[in-house]
């Protein structure tokens, strides 16, 4: 019942959005129709193009490549973020020494780094993975770092008194305690992994969704650009729901928002 209501509301939002889009691009209320269509295409055109693409076979090849890059960037980036986050949080000196460098590295515009990645990793998927990695890593890193430091002092003291060594503390205390933080960052970084992959493809590649979008953009095919982004969006929702599922499983122990009676 509740689920149905939610879906209806979500659909409603979508319909309103499409209606506004349609209105803007097909009536001259908001300026010259030709110009608005040059930038925004029309929802009808975008949807029908998307449909054509999804029913054709070619897009899946590109999607597959982008998916591979995204998943790799996400997995490697979060793994490294988690690893470094934990290491730094557990080693104050290390954290203090590297703090300014990490902050600085996080601020480097990735687009500028693309040639260097291309040099190091070639034009294949790995340079895109590297780009996605630089986005995912920092988000996860900062959150895990904070998450570890947020561990309740009493729970930690208790675990230490139980004789746990560093590895056991990690498994039984730091890790579960940082999980909430991690998942919050993972929701952001799923998106950023995809952005990294697509931007990487956009800057130099031979396949992938970003390549398709760039191709469309070069010939001023806005419909193609938007339909590419639409496919991308559907895609990220799918990946994110996997993250949410894992999250739900791992965080069963948490008290609900309100007390639960029947």
């Amino acid at each position, binding site marked *: 019942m509740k689920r149905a209501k939610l879906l209806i509301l979500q659909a409603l939002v979508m319909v309103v959005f499409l209606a506004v889009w349609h209105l803007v691009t097909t009536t001259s209320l908001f300026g010259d129709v030709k110009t608005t269509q*040059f930038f925004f295409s029309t929802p009808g055109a975008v949807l029908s193009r998307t449909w054509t693409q999804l029913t054709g076979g070619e897009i899946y090849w590109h999607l597959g490549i982008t998916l591979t890059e995204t998943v790799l960037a996400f997995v490697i980036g979060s793994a490294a973020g988690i690893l470094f986050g934990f290491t730094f949080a557990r080693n104050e000196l290390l954290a203090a020494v590297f703090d300014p460098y990490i902050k600085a590295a996080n601020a480097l515009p990735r687009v500028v780094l693309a040639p260097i990645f*291309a040099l190091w990793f*070639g*034009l294949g998927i790995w340079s895109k993975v590297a780009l996605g990695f630089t986005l995912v890593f920092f988000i996860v890193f900062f959150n895990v770092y904070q998450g570890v430091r947020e561990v309740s002092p009493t729970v930690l003291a208790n675990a230490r008194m139980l004789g746990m060594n560093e590895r056991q503390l990690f498994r039984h205390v730091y890790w579960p305690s940082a999980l909430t933080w991690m998942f919050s960052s993972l929701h952001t970084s799923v998106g950023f992994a995809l952005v990294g992959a697509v931007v990487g493809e956009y800057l130099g590649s031979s396949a992938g969704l970003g390549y398709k979008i760039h*191709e469309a953009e*070069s*010939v001023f095919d806005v419909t193609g650009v938007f339909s590419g982004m639409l496919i991308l969006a559907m895609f990220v929702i799918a990946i994110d729901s996997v993250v949410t599922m894992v999250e739900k499983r791992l965080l069963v122990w948490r008290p609900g928002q309100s007390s639960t009676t029947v």
Partner: protein
Amino acid sequence: QNAEKPKLTLGVGGKQLLYYLPLTVAEKKGFFKEQGLDVEINDFGGGAKSLQALVGGSVDVVTGAYEHTIRMQAKGQDIRAVVELGRFPGITIAVRKDLADKIKSAADFKGLKIGVTAPGSSTALTAQYAMIKAGLKASDAPIIGVGAGASAVAAMKQKQVDIISHLDPVTSKLEADGDVVALIDTRTEAGTKALFGGSNPAAVLYLKHDFAEKNPVTTQKLVNAFVKSLKWLETAKPEDVADLVPAEYHLGDKPLYLRAVKNSLESYSRTGISTPDAMKSMYDALKLLDPELASSNVDLSKTFIDSFAKKASSGS
């Protein structure tokens, strides 16, 4: 007579590229000021972005590829060129050194990886056009976007691509380092003729038609400035150019820069006026390559207003 709009914004996708040298010349030589214009130059990440800025109204005029005006006319956007800056495309198709003895012409490209600035861009189209002319299909070789700058050099040095269809300074850099051998060179008249059968408008100054109609004096003054810089380039030596542009433009390697300028000098337009033949040759090439344009019917006389350039040439 005073300009209607003495302050204007100009868009360009990569100002430092030799492709757009006439713009830098006009700026540095003070030709805009001479005409009483105050031009703010906005640099964009690529030609497509500067065109979008023009359509969106963020800039008044753009120095970009002539091809854009055809595409825009096909989409119903009345965008027209007013002065030609480059008469040859300036694109070089080169093959990696170690393959040079096997690959002699576009007919041998089958299955090789071709590096271009971006899929769908003019470098890509030129490469595909060459293949079609040589009897292959456009899809016979994978097109790889390698970007515009150092990443293109990296791609070739790392043997990520076999062929590169690119612009200066990338081409000159690769040539100077001995990484590639040029097969088709549209920086020269001969090369362009060989590929397209005639000259082929490249960089132009284009704008929205109503802008030209509403601001004829401003447009005229702009064109005057550009024609003047074309005239200057006609007689300039590479060293003159190198002295004029900021030292950062020298690619960190002045001999390389001089070489690149020398290669390019021939490609700049002399009069600022494009011929209908040249325009048609461009359109035909596009029709061949782009399914969207294949069925289009663009009136080429609407893509270029030559009256301003004519007046400028006769005036000076």
